[in-house]
């Protein structure tokens, strides 16, 4: 753990935002590859980006604070519904919808954070599930507001900045989502290296010791949950805007479980791990699940068992240690 924390802190003061610019550039390059190589699958790629926000958001609480949760789709779903309802009721500006989603996600994050982070272990897990299921039940039953099991449809957002229209090939939706992802990713990679982010890491490693040095743990965790809710909210709102429908699946238990699987597959505790997990999982799901959904479940199950047994820190770990060795060698010579 200490080794990772040491890597996260830059040894000397460098030009601000240089490290983040590298990350942003990498995402843009990947996005451009997706845009030019798979022009027919842009709708799928847009959805992939939407879910990536949820995985990033889960990484903030699970990877950085060590909170085990199986109800994280609640933040995503509430934001998606909020954005969708606002759009149906007449607010069509995509940026405004994004703000509404972020706000709803933050609020939901603060509420569930206040409930969930009071406990550790089993009570925490069960509370997170119960909160998630409560939201799912509400979304199902308040059908005059949410459309119930038919889903909320008829979301037709206006033009981005009044210029770019949402087209049926999802070009605008894709580029818009990608741009938001770059901004959020840069902000988050600053955020997790801020004193607050490092403190959360400390709480995760040893909450008793954190208490001993005078940290009030509970408010920090709730705050982190709020930030995480905001990120999930961005994802939810983007998904609502780009797909035009919000279904019950966006708040379901399966969504929460899947996202946790993606995070662990990539590697919890690294933003890149979250992105890599989201990308790998969903691309494979897209391919295998189209053939036979049950083969997909067998495969995911097997993969998850193998990951937990042989690489509990995710696929990103070997890559990171390779990078670390490379940079150390470079600095020594």
């Amino acid at each position: 753990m200490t080794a990772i924390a040491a890597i996260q802190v830059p040894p000397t003061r460098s030009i601000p935002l240089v490290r983040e610019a590298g990350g942003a550039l990498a995402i843009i390059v990947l996005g451009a590859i997706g845009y030019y190589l798979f022009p027919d699958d842009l709708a799928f790629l847009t959805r992939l980006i939407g879910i990536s926000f949820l995985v990033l958001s889960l990484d903030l609480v699970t990877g950085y604070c060590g909170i085990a949760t199986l109800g994280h789709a609640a933040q995503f779903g509430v934001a998606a519904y909020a954005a969708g309802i606002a759009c149906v009721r007449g607010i069509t500006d995509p940026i405004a919808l994004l703000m509404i989603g972020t706000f709803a996600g933050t609020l939901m994050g603060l509420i569930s954070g206040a409930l969930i982070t009071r406990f550790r272990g089993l009570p925490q897990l069960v509370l997170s599930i119960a909160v998630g299921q409560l939201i799912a039940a509400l979304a199902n039953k308040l059908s005059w507001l949410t459309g119930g099991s038919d889903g909320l449809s008829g979301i037709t957002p206006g033009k981005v900045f009044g210029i770019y229209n949402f087209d049926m090939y999802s070009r605008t939706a894709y580029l818009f989502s990608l741009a938001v992802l770059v901004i959020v990713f840069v902000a988050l990679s600053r955020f997790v290296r801020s004193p607050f982010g490092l403190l959360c890491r400390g709480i995760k490693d040893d909450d008793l010791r954190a208490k001993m040095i005078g940290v009030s743990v509970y408010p920090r965790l709730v705050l982190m949950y709020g930030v995480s809710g905001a990120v999930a909210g961005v994802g939810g709102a983007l998904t609502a805007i780009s797909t035009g429908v919000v279904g019950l699946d966006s708040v379901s238990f399966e969504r929460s479980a899947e996202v946790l699987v993606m995070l662990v597959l990539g590697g919890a505790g690294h933003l890149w791990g979250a992105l890599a997990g989201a990308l790998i999982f969903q691309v494979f799901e897209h391919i295998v699940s189209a053939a036979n959904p049950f083969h997909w479940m067998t495969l995911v199950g097997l993969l998850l068992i193998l990951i937990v047994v042989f690489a509990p820190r995710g696929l990103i770990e070997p890559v990171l240690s390779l990078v670390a060795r490379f940079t150390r060698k470079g600095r020594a010579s």
Partner: protein
Amino acid sequence: MRTVFSILIDAIAYGMVLFIISIGLSIMMGLMRVVNLAHGAFAMIGGYLASYAIRDLHVNYGIAILMAVIGTIIVSVPFEVLLYRRIYRKSDPLIQVLMTIGITFFIIGVVNFIFGPSLKSIPLPATLSGPLDIGFRSLPTHRLFVIACGIVTALALWLLIEKTEFGIKLRASVDHSGMADALGIRTEIIYAVTFALAIGLGAFGGVVGAEILPVEPFYALRYMVTFLVVVSVGGAGSILGALSASLLLGLADTTGKYLAPEFGEFFFYLTVICIVFLFPHGLFGRSHA
């Protein structure tokens, strides 16, 4: 009055099914401290095996239950030896959650590959399918059968844990496994036997409860949360806790569905949040700090 009575019978029968399935999980979580989300998957295997035995092998209901329980235990052995042993008493719930979710997905995929993805009915014998006249009112026989099964299971488990030597060793291992080990109790054997017992109870509950919780391709995922919630509300490792939690949650759920069908699940989870918030270790649980 009639409504109250039928709510009560349905609620108790539902609660008993929850109890039979969850008590295995509760014992496992009390002793091995494993958050086993795959418990429902083993109940599902039991249901599929019983359905296969009755519909394709044409055996009688009692023998089918026996076959399902033994078959499921045999299937579970490799999982115990290869996977569960690694996560017994590990403190990190995240690892346990992930591994058991993986096992659940794997079992769902394989079971549906073998038996086909459709709803599996478990036909009841004639003696259990009709209504039973108890003088002033007639009741569905199957509901009464399920309630009887639940009571017998609770009593048998109580006798096993409180009155036998195995029970003494089990309680010693729950209280302090290191000390139990030092006193010459083979804890790994206790763990293995308890695992088999828990899985067997799960399979048994899956079969007799099939009328109330139908056996379908995503059974393991659909009820995963319900079973975990029962254990968490009751307190891990407590028979009385699991029984009262099952009946309480069965009542909350059934009443909600009868009286306010559009908000059934909502009341269920609201009850859960309140109870877990007030009693983080369950109604009858102890903290394992």
